[in-house]
């Protein structure tokens, strides 16, 4: 039988599960980061700051976070998805797609018509996922250099 997946707003008791699901970067730096993110995006009930989780059978199996940002880099208001994760045991079940569709719906309700993200070019799984959702290379190009 197919498991029921529900997408809902993140609550404080989800934080440990989100930290456990987060695979990007050094683990030891992340709890403080996620607490800050949670305070900024999950509290306050602002419709342009979003932090959602996917839950099945009482277990958090995915998260996605994003917000509306306006005029950064000269860009008109636009939705940004800046963090996302799905339990490795629950991949290819459509959980990422459900979360992405829900955050897009809410970003649209917040008044934007474009969604963006940024992904490490070596992170093929996440890049392939976003491409499968119809995202293409956008009009802004990320540039960087090492500063010594």
């Amino acid at each position, binding site marked *: 039988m197919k498991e029921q997946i529900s997408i809902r707003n993140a609550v404080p008791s989800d934080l440990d599960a989100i930290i456990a699901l987060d695979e990007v970067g050094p683990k030891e730096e992340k709890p403080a980061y996620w607490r800050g993110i949670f305070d900024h995006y999950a509290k306050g009930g602002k419709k342009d700051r979003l932090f959602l989780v996917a839950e099945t059978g009482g277990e958090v199996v995915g998260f996605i976070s994003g917000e509306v940002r306006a005029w950064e880099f000269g860009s008109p208001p636009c939705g940004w998805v800046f963090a996302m994760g799905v339990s490795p045991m629950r991949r*290819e079940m459509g959980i990422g797609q459900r979360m992405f569709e829900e955050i897009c719906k809410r970003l649209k309700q917040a008044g934007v018509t474009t969604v963006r993200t940024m992904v490490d*070019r070596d992170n*093929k799984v996440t890049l*392939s996922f976003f*491409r499968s959702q*119809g995202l293409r290379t956008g009009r802004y190009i990320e540039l960087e250099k090492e500063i010594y």
Partner: protein
Amino acid sequence: MKLNKGSLFALFAVLELASDSARQLSTTDIAEKYGISTHHLAKVMRNLVHAGLVQAVRGVGGGYRFAGNVSRTTLLDVIALFETLESELDVPNHWSHAGDPIVAELRSITKEIDNLTKAVLDTITLETALKSTRRSTEAAAGAAGDKP
């Protein structure tokens, strides 16, 4: 970027066959649809069979059918069977300034472009390309239907 004929014909064939993995098509069917050389396509198909992306079906009504993983195989996986996508600076071999700083800078720039090209092609799966194709076709059909 200019794909060589082998890569392009392979993409035509693989995407055409992957769009309906139960369907068998002959080299002539595919070549006629895309207006390409049957002879050249036949050579390409042998490479695709060898790579396990398509399967030759013998007998009456035989042809080829898709045998790969549509959600895992990327456009770059197909192209890489035929070319490396490395830009070449047409610097004469006998030229004594091949190590010139300007040549090195131009090589560095072409490498940056190559890396971006590969990052795009390596994250578009056959499934994503076909999904996007279907969306475009449906949108075009919808737009045509809307016309008075």
